[in-house]
């Protein structure tokens, strides 16, 4: 089934009410996004093979990945034929609709976290080495605390040198208690203690850090499953969210990461970190398409304020806006010279 069809089906399967609510909520951003795309495309040129090719390259350069890009292009070509679009005017709507649709689902409720009314909400962070788990935990804790919630952190990375201290610094910085054991101790034991402490002290949110691990290390993935299990044993239904930290600079391997971590820990959402750089993390598009995992937050820097809820419109726009702008500029110059 084609990329868009699949997504469309998912969306149309939703009750009208939510779709409507969602539409209203997004009307403003949507128009601004659409008009931006319109501007860009209008400054461009005819809808011909060259146009498609350049669009394709922009998406490939954003790490979207070959397969997903090809599906996208096929769908767009089909749309253009179906609507008999010949100039850029017609394709504007097609592009903006299609691209944003991919992320529609991510915003209607699924984008928010599964918070518990009673008892602590437990959020587990997983991911490969150095992607930004600990930093994101610090930022997220800060976010909760500014909303008036009490937060506790569990230092589950007992392996990497200085990892516990790193989380402690974040805890001190944002005002959250850190449950920690000695270096090299069993991470499952840390989780056990942390969940108990969180229940006893009636904190609102417990955020659990884990050591980075490459998804092909079977032993380490088993360890992670155990950590996940221990949390669930101490508190039924916990962890309520398991967030996979993905580094936006990562290429196609991110898809395998998402798949493997999902299998091991039932990942409920993604945090796309380091989007303040030039990398776009386009692979989340493929992840969304193939595995259905939504992006919940994006990391935009190393400070505690640098975490934002994922905004599909802005994200998709950012995927190719720069590229199109540059193209348009070059074209503009060329025209000016004529």
């Amino acid at each position, binding site marked *: 089934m084609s990329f868009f069809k699949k997504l469309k089906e998912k969306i149309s399967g939703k009750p009208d009410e939510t779709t409507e609510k969602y539409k209203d909520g997004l009307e403003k951003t949507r128009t601004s996004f659409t008009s931006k795309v319109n501007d860009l495309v209008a400054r461009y040129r005819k809808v011909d093979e060259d146009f498609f090719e350049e669009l394709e390259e922009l998406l*490939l350069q954003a*790490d979207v990945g070959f397969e997903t890009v090809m599906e996208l292009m096929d769908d767009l070509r089909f749309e253009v034929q179906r609507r008999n679009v010949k100039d850029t005017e017609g394709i504007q709507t097609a592009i903006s609709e299609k691209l944003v649709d991919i992320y529609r689902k991510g915003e209607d409720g699924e984008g928010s976290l599964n918070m518990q009314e009673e008892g602590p909400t437990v959020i587990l962070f997983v991911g490969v*080495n150095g992607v930004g788990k600990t930093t994101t935990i610090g930022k997220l804790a800060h976010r909760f605390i500014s909303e008036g919630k009490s937060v506790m952190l569990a230092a589950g990375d007992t392996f990497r*040198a*200085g990892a516990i201290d790193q989380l402690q*610094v974040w805890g001190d910085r944002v005002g959250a208690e850190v449950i920690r054991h000695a270096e090299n101790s069993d991470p499952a034991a840390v989780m056990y203690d942390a969940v108990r402490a969180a229940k006893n002290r009636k904190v609102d949110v417990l955020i659990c850090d884990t050591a980075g691990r490459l998804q092909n290390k079977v032993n380490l993935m088993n360890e992670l499953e155990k950590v996940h299990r221990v949390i669930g044993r101490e508190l039924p239904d916990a962890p309520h969210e398991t967030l996979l930290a993905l580094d936006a600079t990562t290429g*196609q391997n991110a898809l*395998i990461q998402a798949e493997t971590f999902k299998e091991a820990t039932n990942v409920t959402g993604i945090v796309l970190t*380091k989007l*303040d750089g030039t990398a776009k993390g386009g692979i989340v598009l493929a992840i969304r398409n193939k595995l259905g995992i939504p992006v919940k937050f994006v990391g935009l820097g190393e400070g505690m304020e640098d975490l934002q809820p994922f905004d599909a419109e802005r994200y998709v726009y950012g995927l190719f806006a720069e590229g199109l702008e540059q193209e348009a500029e070059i074209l503009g110059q060329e025209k000016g010279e004529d």
Partner: protein
Amino acid sequence: MAFEGLGERLQQTLQKIKGKGKVTEADVKEMMREVRFALIEADVNLKVVKEFVKKVSERAVGSDVMQSLTPGQQVVKIVRDELAELMGGETEAITFAKKPPTVIMMVGLQGAGKTTTTGKLANLIRKKYNRKPLLAAADVYRPAAIQQLETIGKQLGMPVFQLGTEADPVDIAKQAVAKAKEDHNDVVFIDTAGRLQIDEDLMQELRNIHDAVKPDEVYLVVDAMTGQVAANVAETFDQQVGVTGVVLTKLDGDTRGGAALSIRSVTGKPIKFAGMGEKLDALEPFHPERMASRILGMGDVMSLIEKAQTNVDEEKAKELEQKFRDQSFTFDDFLEQLEQVKKMGPLDEILKMLPGAGKIKGIDNVKVDEKQMDRVEAVIKSMTIAEKSKPEIINSSRKKRIARGSGTSIQEVNRLLKQFDEMRKMMKQMSNMQQGKGKRKMKMPGLDSLFK
């Protein structure tokens, strides 16, 4: 979701061409589409892919590919050769200053592995070149970055220089070099903070450190999983601080590692080392040839062969073969074999290095239970010397003792004894068959069945 390798994809393309007799220029073009696809899936930068494909096409069209009976293999060979050439030769040489201390600066994006690699390189330099490194903590931004380096220093028994988080990284670098002179440390590593290549202030800071200490080496540390942006990152760091070598980290993962090609082709700088794990000895020389195969998804055959070679001692192998033949193979020999296999690394990872492994469904989930291996070891270690060399004498009271001693069960002991017996018989058959062929292939038949 293991991707198919280029070899397999070309095979498929050729199925279509087959029967037409000769390969046409259009067919070559078709094959190049597959090359392009393989490289993009491996995360090679698109611009680099374009140049590369152009070059390879020219060579392919102008060469014997079109006449060849095995055009697919020809194309793979050309692609591989070109790729290997682009990757450059092996160069792990480190430039040491004529007048010590040698200053080595570590730079790169956040989380790439700079601090860990600093520890690994310092470890290597001490071992291989007999130097005395000092590690300087110039990352004052990331929380607990200094503690991280200090922990690593402690693990290695090496001094770490730091001025806290309030100091200016330029001062830290300068004072570290002075301190090294004073203490007769002949190498100074400057572990800088991670930074985005577009962060002008922080890039300026790097230039300032560079100007202040004039490093002999500037190593750019890059995560092997990096996508399209790798080219731009490498190019910018190189322009700003003059990179002298690259370390590719996290190659113990299952990424294709196309970033290696992007980095090489935009900077021309050698990739010197490969990070193969989180431990401080997990650093290897970078092998361009193998990287070429890996990018194309052709299996890391070379690594596998080398691993087997370094870990199997030729003399021992001969000895063992003799034992196979006269059935004097004991549990002690068996234990030694176990150790050898273990030294090759986790078995499931070795499995995955086999060419075509990506095609085997479920290979990613194959789990070789290393715990089971430990249990087998425990059982053997609980035997007496006599029992190890003459397992026949193990009666039920001995079995009971062994089971208790190893914390296993009598059933497990029984199973091992039975398997060992079968193995011995099989070995005899095999070595008889191989005798006279002059082939010395050392393999332990039935070994795998023990760990399932």
